[in-house]
């Protein structure tokens, strides 16, 4: 009994500790979880194991009361997002007080309930994959603890009871139960876990939900991903490389349905910055928000290229984006994009090729955001650098006014408002930039008037020829009277992408070429397991966008699958090393974790009514379930194809060819079938066995001597040996021994002993057995029972 009790105490202490770890995985800090851990193991050692002390009941209640008062006051004082912290505090502190009490069934139950409530609080606080991982040991320990508590409660049931006229004691039975209880948890968990998982699965995916996701601020952790829509230029010291995840982006070829792989990094536009100012020696880029045409419109429709344009010149790619909670409304896209799925929560900004969430929504995006669009920007895995300024059906009459197109619709007017935003330059403030531009132009000679060639020359100079160096260590001593860009090109000649892009923009503007900054992300980190691209904070990038008339763009940059008229925005990236196709790749473990996190996000955290509907009913009239099955079958086929080709997970899960998966799988299935046939037996199918044997009445003629009757019951139940009417006990015993021997059962000794004692009691003078004789009778019964049960178990296994 002590062992069972110790086991139980340990399990509840462990449950408390894991509950504390679950809280720690969220945003509650480490103090509360530390208290929980310390309380759990401290109480187990001091109170349960060594029994040094324990809190008396009155003191424990007093302590809990004080904790409750303190936490309620905190709850009333705190703001909404911290009120849950007060609740977590209450749970942990009260639980610690309970742990230091002497454990009874009631105390264990209370500890369990508080642990469950901690799990609820942790679920609200934390949505990371770590929570899901910790949920597994918490569940296992919790279920084991419940089973052990049930066993202990049953063992201590009616241990001793006393009333005014009778005293009973079930100590012996309790001891036996306690000894046998160690294996009980595995029965309970192994038997019920699959069913529980199935029920939870159907409950989760079948529960009706709201259609959209949350728009209000959640109670979860703080937003850790930031995107600034302005840019400052200054020597700010060493920039930290932040590997925080920004988004996951899945590219798929719409023609084949397969994942689409690129051969060069992808540029994702987040914001365009046109206006450069300097204040107190610090440069600052800002966006000039102007309303051109509609203030925010639907995504442009897909462009229908001429049938003469071969479809091999461009790829039809669909982009699915899972954007992490962000501190701004910006969305990131590959231009040119078009609509593939109606989404009222995504707006397109004309003339800027930017996506964003409508301003009517919260200024921050506290939840993960999913959106989708199509793009023809890729050809053969390479993203086009050129984008027609106006998308399909955007060249309205207003363009001539707002964007300053000439009547032919092809060229822009330099004096238009839109173009002027991209020409802001001060020669007085940036003399070195101007000098640099002039020197480059001079080297080009006649070609200096070719805007595209000039831009390419500036890009080349900054990236390669100019001796500039890329660095994130911005620790130079600055002269605040000098523009930071001028200092960059003349003094330091080292900086990061923002400096290079800014310098190029200014250099182009000094020659009258409209240019602006684009900030966003550039990535080629691919997760083969999840078949998606990963965008991290460290992938943030700035590049240049130049507005050119179509005739200025050489044939190499001919636009395919885009409108045929209008000015063109051409991308230039003057940052050294940006032509490298290999960025820092995370390890296999990181990709595995990212894949798991992606599944966790998609199938658990972000399940909502819309996804449920899509999953069940499909979209656009297509039966969702049928499509799901087809997709599942296709994925299984792909899985085995990749498995055979050692390309599982894009090669990330490839193993050495030491054995054949197919053969192994076949072997396992064959073993299971053989085992099942052996166990079940063919004949059993024709027997129509009853699932439940009716509980039979014990109606045989019974002896008044209890232990002898018990022996008769056991023989009848296990061996179907029944005492005939008129048969003496001795005759019965002899017959039973003979039949038992025929079945190779060695139960003669206990039968003979019990029969002898029967005669002793039945026909002796005093009709009573001594204490020692009673013990011998007990032992004989136990032996007989054990041997018969063993024989029955062996028989059922053989059958």
């Amino acid at each position, binding site marked *: 009994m002590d062992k069972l009790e110790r086991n139980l105490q340990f399990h509840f202490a462990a449950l408390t500790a894991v509950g504390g770890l679950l809280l720690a995985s969220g945003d509650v800090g480490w103090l509360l979880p530390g208290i929980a851990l310390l309380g759990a193991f401290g109480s187990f050692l001091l109170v349960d194991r060594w029994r040094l002390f324990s809190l008396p009941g009155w003191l424990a209640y007093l302590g809990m009361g004080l904790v409750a008062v303190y936490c309620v006051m905190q709850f009333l004082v705190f703001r909404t997002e911290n009120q849950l912290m007060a609740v977590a505090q209450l749970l942990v502190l009260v639980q610690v007080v309970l742990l230091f009490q002497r454990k009874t069934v009631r105390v264990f139950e209370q500890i369990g309930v508080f642990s469950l409530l901690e799990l609820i609080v942790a679920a609200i606080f934390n949505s990371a994959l770590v929570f899901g991982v910790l949920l597994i040991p918490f569940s296992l320990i919790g279920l084991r603890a*419940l089973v052990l508590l049930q066993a202990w409660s*049953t063992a201590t049931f009616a241990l001793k009871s006393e*009333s005014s006229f009778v005293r009973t004691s079930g100590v012996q039975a309790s001891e036996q*139960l306690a000894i046998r209880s160690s294996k009980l948890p595995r029965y309970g968990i192994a038997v019920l876990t699959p069913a529980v998982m199935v029920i939870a699965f159907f409950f989760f995916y079948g529960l009706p939900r709201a259609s959209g996701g949350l728009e209000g601020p959640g109670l979860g952790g703080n937003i850790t991903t930031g995107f600034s829509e302005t840019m400052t230029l200054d020597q700010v010291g060493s920039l930290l490389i932040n590997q925080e995840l920004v988004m996951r982006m899945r590219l798929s070829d719409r023609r084949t349905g397969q994942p689409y792989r690129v051969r060069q990094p992808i540029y994702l536009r987040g914001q365009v910055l046109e206006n450069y100012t300097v204040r107190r020696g610090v440069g600052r880029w800002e966006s000039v928000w102007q309303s051109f045409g509609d203030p925010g419109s639907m995504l442009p429709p897909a462009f229908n290229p001429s049938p003469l344009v071969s479809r091999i010149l461009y790829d039809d790619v669909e982009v699915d984006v899972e954007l992490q909670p962000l501190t701004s409304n910006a969305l990131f896209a590959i231009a040119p994009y078009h609509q593939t799925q109606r989404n009222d929560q995504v707006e397109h900004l004309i003339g800027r090729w930017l996506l964003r969430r409508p301003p009517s929504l919260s200024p921050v995006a506290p939840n993960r955001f999913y959106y989708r669009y199509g793009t023809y920007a890729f050809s053969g895995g390479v993203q086009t650098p050129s984008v027609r300024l106006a998308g399909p059906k955007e060249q309205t009459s207003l363009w001539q006014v707002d964007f300053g197109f000439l009547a032919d619709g092809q060229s822009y007017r330099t004096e238009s408002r839109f173009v002027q935003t991209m020409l802001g330059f001060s020669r007085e403030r940036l003399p070195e930039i101007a000098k640099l531009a002039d020197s480059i132009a001079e080297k080009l000679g006649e070609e200096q008037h070719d805007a595209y060639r000039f831009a390419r020359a500036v890009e080349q100079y900054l990236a390669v020829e100019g001796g500039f160096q890329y660095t994130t260590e911005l620790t130079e001593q600055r002269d605040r009277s000098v523009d930071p860009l001028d200092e960059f090109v003349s003094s330091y000649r080292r900086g990061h992408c923002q400096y290079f892009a800014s310098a190029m923009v200014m250099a182009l503007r000094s020659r009258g070429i409209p240019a602006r900054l684009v900030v966003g992300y550039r990535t080629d980190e691919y997760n083969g397991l999840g078949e998606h691209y990963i965008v991290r904070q460290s992938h943030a990038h700035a590049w240049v966008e130049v507005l050119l008339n179509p005739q200025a763009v050489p044939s190499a940059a001919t636009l395919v699958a885009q409108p045929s008229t209008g000015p063109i925005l051409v991308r230039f990236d003057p940052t050294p090393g940006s032509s490298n196709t290999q960025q820092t790749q995370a390890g296999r473990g990181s990709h595995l974790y990212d894949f798991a996190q992606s599944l966790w996000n998609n199938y658990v955290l972000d399940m*909502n009514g819309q996804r449920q509907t899509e999953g069940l009913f499909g979209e656009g009239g297509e039966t969702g379930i049928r499509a799901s099955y087809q997709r599942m079958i296709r994925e299984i086929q792909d899985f085995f194809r990749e498995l055979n080709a050692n390309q599982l997970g894009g090669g990330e899960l490839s193993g050495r060819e030491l054995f054949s998966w197919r053969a192994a799988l076949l072997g396992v299935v064959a073993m299971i079938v053989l085992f099942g046939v052996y166990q079940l037996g063919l004949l059993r199918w024709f027997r129509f066995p009853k699932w439940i044997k009716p509980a039979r009445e014990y109606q045989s003629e019974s002896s008044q001597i209890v232990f002898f009757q018990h022996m008769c019951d056991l023989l009848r139940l296990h061996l179907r040996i029944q005492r005939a009417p008129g048969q003496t006990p001795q005759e019965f015993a002899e017959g039973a021994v003979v039949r038992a021997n025929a079945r190779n059962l060695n139960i003669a000794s206990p039968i003979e002993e019990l029969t002898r004692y029967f005669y002793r009691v039945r026909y002796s003078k005093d009709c009573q057995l001594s204490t020692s004789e009673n013990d011998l009778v007990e032992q004989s019964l136990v032996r007989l029972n054990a041997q018969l049960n063993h024989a029955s*178990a062996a028989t059922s296994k053989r059958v």
Partner: protein
Amino acid sequence: MSHEHGVQTRLTRNGVHMAFVALFAALGGSVRGFNLLVILAGLIIGILLMQWRFSRVLLPGLSARRMLPREAFAKTPFKVRFAVANGRWWLPAWLIRIEDKILAIDSALPPAQAGCSLSMIRPSSSEATQYDCTFSRRGHYQFGPLRLTTGFPFGLTRAAKNAAAVAPLTVFPRLATLRPQWIGVIENRRDGLSASRHSSGPSEGDFYGIRRWQTGDSRRWIHWRTTARIGNLAVRQFEHLNRTELSLLVDPYSLDDADSNAVEWAISVAAAMVQHLAVQNHPHLVLGIADAAKTVVASNRVPSFRTAALHALAGVRCLEQPPLDTTLAAMFASINPHQPIVVVSPRPARMDLLRSGQGPGGARFSPLLFDKLDILWLDVTSPSSERIAYRREEMHGQA
């Protein structure tokens, strides 16, 4: 014994807590969009559902049988055994509680709860368990009904099923420990002992040895030849030397509860005498109990005098004025008037209470007839009764 197959299931305290938490999580998760809460709610609901079904499924296949001892004595522990069989061929049964109820039929006391437990019963097998039971008082009791309950695996619900009907049990009085020569003490305390002793055959038994003379031995047993040889009195030993025939009259006198121990002691002594005498072959014994029913048990009228007498003693109710006289008169139909009549009483001798009875034929006892009766009044509370039975203090010491 009847079996009822209805199973009742209810949520336990722990189950109610978890149900509330699940409800909170489900509502909060679906309304506020916290999917993790919905998952937790699903898991908890799944656990509750499986717990409910599992605990219900375990019990219908079980049957239980209670086995009470043939005899039970007050203040003597005995075992109440159970055999629980699992009729299912594929599913074991775990953590079975057996809840039994004990009701005192003779009094209005509330029933007592008793029980034991089993950890596991394999399919198509049975397991035995028991609990120890000790009654503090003699009387008639009833065991049952029996309930099987289980909360396996997680204790969130508890299923219960009635398994066996009631079973009566008569608890006999506690047996006093009589001194080895108590019969001789009784026989030697009266005059004319030899006249009341009954020789049932040509000899007093088979002679099988010589021993030293002891107080209480008859002079007829003296073996003079051996005595002369060894110089000390020696007597013959016989098998079935003594076939004592006694009549016992129990006086259940009790003024109030303060005297109940004394009358219980008297009953215990009487029961011990019955027990001792009944093991002899063909003794003619008569027991009278001066209770309201004027119970008389005669060995020639019942198949088992011992059992009938103990049963009668188990149900004795104390009276302020026990009808000793009329009970004695009722005994006359069965007793041998020459055999001694021992009145076992918790009070000093009150022969006058016996005289007012009516003799055979309805006539009152004449003083002459009464004087012919061999009546011995045994006051169990007097110090002299220690020659008959060990007092409880000595018994505890010897134990």
